[in-house]
């Protein structure tokens, strides 16, 4: 076992009898080193700069087909909502008495749409869409919201460059909460 000098005494296991130095702290070191393939299989998170976006591509026409088959039951025709969350519209409502938070009116990053659809949707069958299908559905939702053109192709290069309309309206409360 290797000792890890950065560990505080209060956190590690104090090794007592028989130890050369009673102040040395150790931890069990029972983690197995992960392989690249193991990491790649689980690493599904996509930050705003697009790191980790997979190969593949899609545009809104294919996305519309996927949407109607896999998404419309819960999110309504063309993302209009009902029975579950509305995905389209609501632009200009956020400061009103009845704000409508949708992908188009509220979400600050387009990469989040890809990330979330791929990890969690469709609700009853997550992880069932191909990467092409996820790109296509993302393109469809962005197009319905008037953010990209109908023919615009979304892929690892284009998606991070999509500027969402509400991106600049978030105020960070960490590390310091604004007064």
């Amino acid at each position, binding site marked *: 076992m290797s000792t890890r000098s950065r560990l505080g005494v209060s956190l590690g296991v104090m090794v007592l009898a028989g130890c050369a130095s009673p102040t040395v702290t150790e931890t069990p070191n029972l983690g197995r080193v992960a392989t690249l393939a193991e990491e790649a299989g689980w690493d599904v998170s996509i930050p*705003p700069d697009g790191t980790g976006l997979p190969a593949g591509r899609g545009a809104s026409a294919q996305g519309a087909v996927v949407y109607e088959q896999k998404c419309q039951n819960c999110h309504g025709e063309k993302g209009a909502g009902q*029975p579950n969350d509305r995905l389209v519209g609501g632009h200009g409502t956020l400061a009103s008495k009845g704000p409508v938070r949708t992908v188009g009116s509220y979400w600050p990053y387009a990469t989040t749409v890809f990330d979330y659809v791929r990890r969690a949707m469709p609700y009853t069958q997550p992880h069932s869409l191909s990467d092409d299908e996820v790109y296509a559905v993302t393109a469809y939702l962005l197009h319905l919201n008037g953010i990209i053109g109908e023919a615009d192709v979304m892929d690892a290069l284009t998606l991070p460059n999509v500027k969402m309309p509400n991106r600049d309206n978030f105020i960070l409360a960490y590390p310091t909460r604004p007064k």
Partner: protein
Amino acid sequence: MARPKRSSPALLDRRIFLRGGLAALGAIGGLAAGAPGTARAAGPPETPPWMQYPGAPFTTYGGPAKYESKVMRTLIRSQPGTTGSGASRTPLEMLEGTITPSGLHFERHHSGVPDIDPEQHRLLVHGMVKRPLIFTMDALMRYPMRSRIHFMECSGNSQLMYGATPPALRAGELHGLVSCSEWTGVPLRLLLEEAGADPAASWLLAEGADAAAMSRSVPMAKAMDDALIALFQNGERLRPENGYPVRLFLPGYEGNMSVKWLRRIKVTATPTMTKDETSRYTDLQADGKSLMFTYPMGVKSVITRPSPGLTMPGPGLYEVSGIAWSGSGTITKVEVSADGGQTWTETTLSTPVLPRTLTRFRIPWKWNGGSAIVKSRATDSTGEMQPTRDKLVAEHGTNVVFHYNAIQAWSIAGNGEVTNVYA
């Protein structure tokens, strides 16, 4: 402690129960949750029936008394077409003390409760580390652990109170997305140290193994401070609905960041900007801007007795009892008013009073049978005092949804009925 200078005329000194002794205790009226049962057959001079035959045998895992079957999670709401995406609430008004029974801990799931085999489950720690590591649950069980008592509160707790009219609901239905447990597990810091986390990395991503792969970014400073890889709740392994077999626990922070069914920690330079930290758990202000990364839950309190549904059966001496908590520290003071907030009296806090823990406050109150409005307000060790609803709304508007922590007012009518009011 010094006797408070300002004292509400209807409120009594908090030490009256001690001074008055048994005579005062004998006069305490109970709060009726339902019709009183008949005690005719069991009271003296009769021999009660349960003394006339041997009782039930042992059980392998005990449950509550059958007479307590009404004490259950409440206001269970799920997304349309789903049975597991939504929330259930702790019935705060049915409980006492500060520890929430594990089976009554509130739930918030984003895609149901996964059925995870602990033998097959793995925790991956990777990203900006020297050595990406995979841990089995058996391996985690061999690490040094810490036990801490902490509340957990959903950032959406009490959100109905942003509405234009006060909802006619019970304390637990309104505010029951808060619970308190003893959590035991491995300091996250140990695993990050073993993996060799890059000192330049300021964030990590925590991801669950539920069908939503629920994920949140966590500041590295919090991870290295008091974050726990929790394995036990109230002495037993986590309940499935609380993250079995392993969850993240971030004391004081909004509950959804304590990712349940934890499968992955990725050390990163910047926040990942997941759905749940951008589009969901952000706080829309009246001007259309949104606050992002509002982590600690604000200082807050609520009177649980009396409260709606617990009708006061008649004039007399009662104990006002409630809970207070703060995500930023320890509760230092809870005051109660019985005159709508004109005067306040300091209550007694049940010890031990611990940081980021539910704190029980109590004070005797002689109810004269007239209408009254009771309120509580808490102050924490950072000096923050719980705001009035007017102040909170003036500051953040009513579109905000999350982080409601305003003073709660209960109105008591002459017939003893208690209702939720904005006052």
